[in-house]
């Protein structure tokens, strides 16, 4: 080696540390800071985008761009005939990432699977509450403590889950972010050094990217995992530039400071589409925004009154003014991309005259009601207050006086759950696992009416029977039929005014290829390439 080539090599090393020449870097302008890097204690998509998607894998995974299940860390699985036992055969030779202070000494195996679930359900596990306030909301929220009876290690590469009752959506649940597989070896090491909380700061997983550094509220850096079991991803470095303001994100994208961004402001989409250096992918979101009446209170206990109000509200105007066209009018409580969506349902058309007549017939005069509008922007609802203002002026045309009320977000969630709540509440839902049960039972079932998650407090026996039967069946065709019927009952009874399904847009540089939008709303960069 001559001196000259040594110098060159040295210069190249410097360049590499600067993340420059040679290395392909993908920059993603993310919308917020992650709460942490352990996906299980959190519920926000932002956190999953930064933790479970790049760093971790699950036993089974959603096939990119769909809600179908495909093998992940489990190569295959068997379900017993009674639907109570699930046996997973684990993939061999999968390596965990190395980070500063930790180099794995063994491959992924059954112990890691057991640990990942045990810590969420077993109070005696040292990681059950490893930092103040850590709790596994999704695990509890998906009813795992009741559904899972036991998890056993059969051998190093076989794990058996036993359920307490048949549950059709269970497999899809295991593909969710909370079910990410952590390294038990790493967790034990951290526990030994009395720094358990670091599992949330420096994640170690098996995923396509390994974590490099996080600079709070500013930048997250990852590098490609060369040993990824599905093959190394095309780019070498992945950077999240945290940019909360949508207008700023857009400017950064146009200036080339990042190559891909989520959640553009609806107002800017046309401008983005007009930019020749940018392409905009779009897809209907797996979500719904609704206005839930309190069906336990007069006069909203009468379906004809609810229907009349629905007909008085001009939903097209809301799509125009609030969603800026980035959405579609909803007629069913589940989004059209979900299986079992009932296309044949006819929405109550906007007809103020008819609405007025129906209200008169129902004996409703000089109605005064509250409309609750949440103070925050949600994926399914860009601006609830503006929506409420539009509803207010529509309702005024049929002689209904509406007052807009709002509370701080936490308060709003709590107060809207109170069965004595006065008024109709604007809220929505984003699907977790692509199963209709995750909408219909969670938001409209009778048990949800009791807990308050059913904000209409609507408990219809016919509807509830249909969805319970569908949950316990494992025959997809039968389930589809049952859910379609349930949607008919819903429309007849109209506990909600179904407002909209938002459209999700993903603007990116034309240099980016291979990005697939997930119907579940997450952002996953495995397989994405960028041309120079």
């Amino acid at each position, binding site marked *: 080696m001559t001196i000259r080539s040594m110098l060159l090599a040295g210069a190249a090393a410097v360049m590499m540390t600067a993340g420059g020449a040679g290395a392909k870097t993908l920059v993603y302008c993310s919308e917020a800071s992650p709460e942490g890097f352990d996906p299980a204690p959190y519920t926000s998509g932002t956190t999953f985008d930064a933790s479970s998607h790049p760093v971790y894998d699950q036993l089974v995974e959603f096939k990119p761009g769909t809600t179908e299940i495909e093998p992940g860390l489990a190569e295959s699985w068997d379900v017993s005939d009674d639907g109570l036992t699930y046996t997973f055969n684990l993939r061999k030779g999968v390596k965990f990432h190395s980070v500063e202070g930790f180099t794995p000494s063994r491959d992924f195996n059954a112990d890691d699977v057991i640990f990942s679930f045990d810590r969420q359900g077993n109070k005696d596990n040292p990681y059950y509450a490893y930092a103040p306030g850590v709790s596994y909301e999704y695990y509890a929220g998906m009813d795992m403590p009741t559904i899972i009876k036991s998890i056993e290690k059969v051998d190093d590469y076989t794990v058996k889950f036993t359920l307490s009752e048949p549950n059709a959506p269970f497999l899809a649940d295991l593909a969710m972010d909370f079910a990410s597989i952590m390294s038990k070896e790493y967790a034990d090491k951290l526990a030994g050094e009395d720094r358990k*909380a670091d599992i949330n700061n420096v994640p170690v997983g098996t995923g396509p990217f390994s974590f490099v550094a996080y*600079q709070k509220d500013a930048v997250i850096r990852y590098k490609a995992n060369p040993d990824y079991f599905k093959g190394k991803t095309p780019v070498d470095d992945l950077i999240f530039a945290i940019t909360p303001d949508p207008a700023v994100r857009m400017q*950064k994208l146009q200036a080339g400071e990042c190559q891909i961004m989520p959640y553009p402001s609806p107002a800017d989409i046309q401008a983005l589409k007009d930019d020749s250096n940018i392409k905009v992918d779009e897809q209907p979101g797996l979500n719904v925004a609704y206005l839930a009446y309190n069906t336990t209170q007069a006069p909203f206990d009468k379906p004809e009154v609810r229907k009349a109000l629905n007909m008085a509200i001009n939903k097209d105007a809301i799509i125009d003014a609030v969603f800026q066209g980035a959405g579609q009018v909803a007629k069913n409580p589940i989004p059209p991309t979900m299986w079992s969506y009932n296309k044949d349902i006819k929405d109550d058309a906007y007809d103020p005259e008819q609405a007025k007549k129906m209200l008169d017939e129902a004996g409703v005069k000089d109605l005064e009601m509250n409309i609750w509008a949440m103070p925050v922007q949600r994926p399914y609802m860009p601006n609830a207050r503006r929506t409420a203002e539009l509803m207010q002026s529509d309702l005024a045309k049929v002689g209904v006086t509406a007052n807009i009320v709002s509370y701080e977000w936490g308060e709003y969630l709590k107060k809207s759950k109170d069965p004595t709540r006065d008024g109709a509440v604007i809220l929505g839902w984003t699907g977790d696992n692509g199963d209709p049960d995750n909408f219909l039972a969670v938001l409209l079932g009778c048990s949800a009416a009791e807990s308050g998650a059913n904000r209409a407090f609507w408990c219809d026996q016919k509807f509830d029977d249909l969805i319970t039967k569908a949950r316990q069946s494992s025959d997809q065709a039968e389930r589809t039929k049952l859910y379609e019927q349930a949607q008919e009952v819903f429309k007849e009874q109209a506990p909600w005014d179904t407002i909209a399904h938002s459209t999700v847009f993903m603007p990116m540089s034309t240099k980016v290829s291979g990005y697939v939008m997930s119907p579940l709303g997450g952002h996953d960069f495995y397989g994405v390439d960028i041309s120079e």
Partner: protein
Amino acid sequence: MLRFILGKILWLIPTLIGITIVAFGFVRVLPGDPVLLMAGERGLSPERHAELAHQLGFDRPLWQQYLDFIWQLAHGNLGDSLVTHKPVLGEFFALFPATLELGVCAMFLAVVIGVPIGVLAAIKRGSWFDQATMGTALVGYSMPIFWWGLLLIILFSGILQWTPVSGRISLMYYFPNGTGFMIWDALMSGQSGALTSALSHLILPAVVLATIPLAVIARQTRSAMLEVLGEDYVRTARAKGMPPRRVVGVHALRNAMIPVITTIGLQVGMLMAGAILTETIFSWPGIGKWMVDSISRRDYPSVQGGLLMIALIVMFVNLIVDLLYGLINPRIRHR
């Protein structure tokens, strides 16, 4: 002198206790249940709610929580954030360099531009320069800086594309063991272009944050200078034939600086208020934006710790100004 300093510090202790009570008290009366907020649309059962509230210590009597807070405080522990589950103090210091860098640069701009303008305006009292600069200063002083920031973004980042839109440095540069002070890190790294990049990211936020202090300092310098220039000893010096530049430079300026330094000290609190708006507009990862976010997320411990730390910093700066003032002006010491 030592007695003077000690006295000043002792005098602060009751205020300090008051500040802890305020920081603690506020957060307890904030409406909204952080436990519920953590759960979002999904919600949680009453049992789970009680369990979490217990785990977080929200179910104990207030005085117990306060004593616990003080006890932990004495051990340098401000509790853990409810959102990230990480120590508040660590979060504070992770973000503080960004705010400090922004604040120092803004203050630097304000002093370096504001003082000479004020001096010149006073010397050329009534001239077009005086009128133009003081008119501009009043506009600056009346500026809603959150709007000003938006205008600058539209102009310089949007239309002209001269400055980057947000962030602290181009993502190309990465300093694994950085201090958090981007300019310093960029200088130390020796990478060409790093410093330019850091500065170009800093300039707009710094200008926005400097706007009001700059106006205040220019106006204050002018009036302090005018006052001093009218004093007998300056007139005497002038009458004795001392060159005007020397009169201004040696006698007037030094004496005029006393009120100006006080003004600069007082601007630190203002700067923090300005940082809240500036950081929000520019997505600057600092304390101001963190406080706004923490308040809206009902992150009790973060709001509490942040309030306390900020009040301490403001108090500390005021103490320094007080002491400096005592040094410059011995009369104060014996009051």
